[in-house]
């Protein structure tokens, strides 16, 4: 090919000598600007190899003179975000929960931070919408077991319920059936009575019998009217909300075997500011007292 030039008849341009199905490739030179751009790219690539991490080695890689790494960059941007937040975080640290709730700016910051902390730490049990499940309280409603004001919520988050922390919220309901404190019939009557408190019972005679047993066995914690007690963590039995279900079999099950859910203590795992933000957020969900 090199020794004799073949010229395309139509364009008058030299061909490469390659031919496919009668189509010959013209050997037009590259545009100058293209060529210079190409050289510039080559130089850029060489420089890039030298200054940036580029070549994989057996157990590491070339570092490059600029010492760039995406890991370091991420750490830096996290640091920057922390710095940007620190002005608020310092104020959150210094303020009481009531002060935060009264300051719109701090409140907005706490709610946003609380929402993301909730999603990371709490949503596994309470659900991403804080609506709970059977055995895991719904935090949107106005029914609280251990109290629903800011301080009570904060205390619960700090020390948990039946957790391994010394200051944990703790109570223990007897397993009336399993430990044979009450007979089957008595338990059935008490269940009827409890259901009648929220007007969902069906057997008035059984309820009347159960009322006596309730006064003897249950009213110490659940109060005489069944309205519950925050201090003892005894649920209100008069309302429409049932942590473990409100049909008769669920109530019988609760009396027979007792219930004892647990929540971990978050103090020590989360910093104070985060716990404050969580308390503010949970309180804002609609049931805060």
């Amino acid at each position, binding site marked *: 090919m090199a020794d004799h030039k073949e010229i395309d008849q139509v364009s008058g*341009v030299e061909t490469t000598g390659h031919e496919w199905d009668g189509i010959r490739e013209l050997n037009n*030179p590259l545009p100058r600007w293209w060529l210079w751009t190409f050289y510039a790219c080559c130089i850029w690539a060489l420089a890039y190899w030298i200054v940036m991490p580029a070549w994989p080695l057996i157990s590491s890689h070339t570092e490059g003179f600029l010492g760039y790494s995406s890991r370091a960059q991420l750490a830096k941007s996290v640091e920057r975000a922390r710095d940007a937040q620190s002005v608020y975080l310092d104020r959150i640290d210094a303020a009481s929960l009531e002060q935060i709730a009264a300051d*719109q700016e701090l409140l907005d910051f706490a709610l946003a931070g609380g929402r993301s902390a909730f999603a990371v730490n709490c949503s596994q049990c309470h659900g991403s*919408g804080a609506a709970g499940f059977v055995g895991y309280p719904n935090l949107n409603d106005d029914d609280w077991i251990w109290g629903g004001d800011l301080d009570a919520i904060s205390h619960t988050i700090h020390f948990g319920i039946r957790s391994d922390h010394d200051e944990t919220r703790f109570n223990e309901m007897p397993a009336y059936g399993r430990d044979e404190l009450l007979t089957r019939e008595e338990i059935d009557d008490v269940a009827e009575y409890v259901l009648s408190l929220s007007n969902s019972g069906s057997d008035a005679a059984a309820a009347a019998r159960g009322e006596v047993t309730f006064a003897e066995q249950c009213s110490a914690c659940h109060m005489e009217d069944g309205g519950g007690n925050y201090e003892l963590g005894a649920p209100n039995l008069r309302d429409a909300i049932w942590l473990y279900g409100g049909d008769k079999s669920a109530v019988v099950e609760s009396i027979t075997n007792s219930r004892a859910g647990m929540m971990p203590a978050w103090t020590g795992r989360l910093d104070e500011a985060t716990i404050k933000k969580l308390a503010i957020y949970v309180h804002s969900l609609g*049931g805060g007292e």
Partner: protein
Amino acid sequence: MVEQAVAETPGAGVKPDQHGSVERSDAEAVNKKEHRSLYQKRIKIYPKLAKGAFRRWKWVIMAVTLGIYYLTPWIRWDRGPNTPDQAVLIDFPGRRFYFFFIEIWPQEVYYLTGLLILAAIGLFLITSLAGRVWCGYTCPQTVWTDLFIAVEHKIQGDRAARIRLDKAPWGAEKIFRKAATQIVWVIIAIGTGGAWVFYFADAPTLMGDLLAFQAPPVAYITIGVLTFTTYLLGGFAREQVCTYMCPWPRIQGGLLDEESLVIAYNEDRGEPRGARKKDTHPDNLGDCVACNQCVAVCPMGIDIRDGQQLECITCGLCIDACNTVMDKVGLPRNLIEYSTLANVERVRAGEKPRLRLIRPRTIIYSGLIVVVGLIMLFSLITRSDLDLSILRDRNPLFVTLSDGGIRNGYTVKITNKQHNERSFRLVLEGLPESRLSVVGSGADAEALTVGPDSLASYRVFATVPRAALQDSATDIRFRIIDGNGEETINNSVFRGPEQ
């Protein structure tokens, strides 16, 4: 590859016609098909200054378009307190676009889309009617290139002088003229980039900041980038931008038809071309005196006598050049003229040339412009300065309260486009026995305040007794009413347990 920096023979720029007064140029069309390979070094074009009607039009349009570009940011427009008084302002930090009496919010960006659609179809219409007038007269690339050539012309002289200067050895004069040209180009380029940033901030303030080196870095970077591109595209790339970089010339192939205006050389009248003695018109020659003036003035470096070409931006300068010569030799004008391909055929067939402005495609384009324009006008006129949006909580769908009541949560967003604070009463309709409460200390459904020209977001709870709920999903309406009785409504749904 043709290694030819200048398509001229050395020392020859202009030769007077031995036989007449016609100035004769041996200019070669450097972008002639035979000369041009796509893969070659750019051959420099030295456009000669044309004189005539189209050249005058181009000066006028250049003055108007540059005037609009440079002066618009400085026009003031009073909008009342706490708002910018710049007539045209793209306010990125404030997320507003101000255009005289119109203020556009980010969510209304469809007005800009509509404007772009109008501009595009308008361009289609103009192109199908009058060909590439956009390219020839108003395109920024054309305007700035023309301006840069005018600078060259002022400092280095006309075509012949510029060619001579390029060929001359470097000396004091050459250095002075070349440097002066470059300096003026750079000043124009800085002015171009500089004017751009004024559209994005208060112009007088930014001007002060820029001069005091207090302006934000992005302003200097933008000016720098635009200075560089203006200098490069106006001073050096010039016609290469139109031929190689711009997609528009290629798209126009689909918009033009045989009735669109193009620049046409009357081949039947002109050929065979040839030089002649003054005031003689030999029978064996056409009207073209082969003076090459049409080639000399062409900023695109083509010969219009070769027929229609992609490079032709229809600036009309060759018409000016040819008419000047025709007047001088006493031949009828318009050997090169604005015509249509259909008219060329009509004349050839002995018919009268005519302009067919009303054609299917011009009707369709006009119709589209009217429709889009009316839609935009209607939506602009009926546009409210109040907007209500309701986001219903989806997780949880509803909450059962201890008294058995059902509660739904909503995020109510109120956009107040007026420049004063307003207070609204929020009313929930379609849900008997319902109660509204607003989250936050001091918030009251009777008086939701929204600041001037801003958006306020409120968390609202609606609660109903269980017995009042008829269905698992009830259609409801939120209504906001301000002190003057102005109101707006948005629909939502109230969810409850399955019945």
